[in-house]
């Protein structure tokens, strides 16, 4: 499947958001995810099926003013 992850196009085998995070070795309670501009809550990731050309955002905390 072709996905745009944090702005970069990648080909992945994952079919759900949870599988994608695992495949890319994202882990931790500090992640926030969105698909096509909509927040996907932590507890929704297992059931969230991905589709070709989905835009995935994966954000984590950083320093800020």
């Amino acid at each position, binding site marked *: 499947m072709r996905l745009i992850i*944090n702005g970069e196009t990648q080909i992945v085998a994952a079919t759900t958001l949870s599988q994608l995070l695992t495949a890319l*070795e994202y882990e*931790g309670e500090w992640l926030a995810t969105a698909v096509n501009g909509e927040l996907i809550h932590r507890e929704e990731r297992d059931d969230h099926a991905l589709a070709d050309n989905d835009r995935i955002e*994966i954000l*984590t*905390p*950083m320093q*800020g003013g």
Partner: protein
Amino acid sequence: MLELYGTEIPSRLLLGTARYPSPAMLAESVKRSQTGIVTVSLRRETAGGRNGGAFFEMIRELGVRVLPNTAGCHGVSEAVLTAKMAREVFRTNWIKLEVIGNHDTLQPDVFALVEAARILSDEGFEVFPYTTDDLIVAERLLDAGCQVLMPWCAPIGTAAGPLNLSALRSMRAHFPDVPLIVDAGIGRPSHAAIVMELGFDAVLLNTAVAGAGDPAAMPAGRLSARACWSRAIWPCPRRPSSERRFSRDARSILPDRR
């Protein structure tokens, strides 16, 4: 004591967490400043997500309240989504709403800011809008549901200090009951002293502290954390009303004493 959205905050100094020489220096600055609130941000994490995780843990261990921001967002939908993602991570309804209108000056897009503030307030967020000193924009933000305003006193990162005293004075006079926090432009302790004398409720510092020679230590004559700032502005003038030039209610940024 400073009260923001019903929460009492024991300090009138908010501290940004960006651009410190090291994480250890940041942690030390937070501790020594005795700030009650630090601002944080979100970024796209490369696979693994471990940098963000380490920062998250460090902030959590500091035990201060976190105010996430939407730094770098340039439109309503981007800012709203980032706010929702910040709530997911930091588990707070607080959001420092920044909608940037100009890439170079980082001046807020106040039209998009008001729209985003309304959407987020309707969704249960407690919005701290980074705005200018424009009174009408401030009114619109309050109408949109904001109960705190965070005007600049000069553009972000300039350290230029309060550029428009008249506007800041007007803002204080027009909104006597709204917590007003100067969010940007303070570069020296004297700048903080001026806005606190005008009656502002608190100041947010970042570059001025992070860019000090030694942010956590407190050498005389340098900008640094609490000692320098408090030395400069405390005790805050509380003159009889006939002698007050600036405000009827000047405040200190030191932690309130009980």
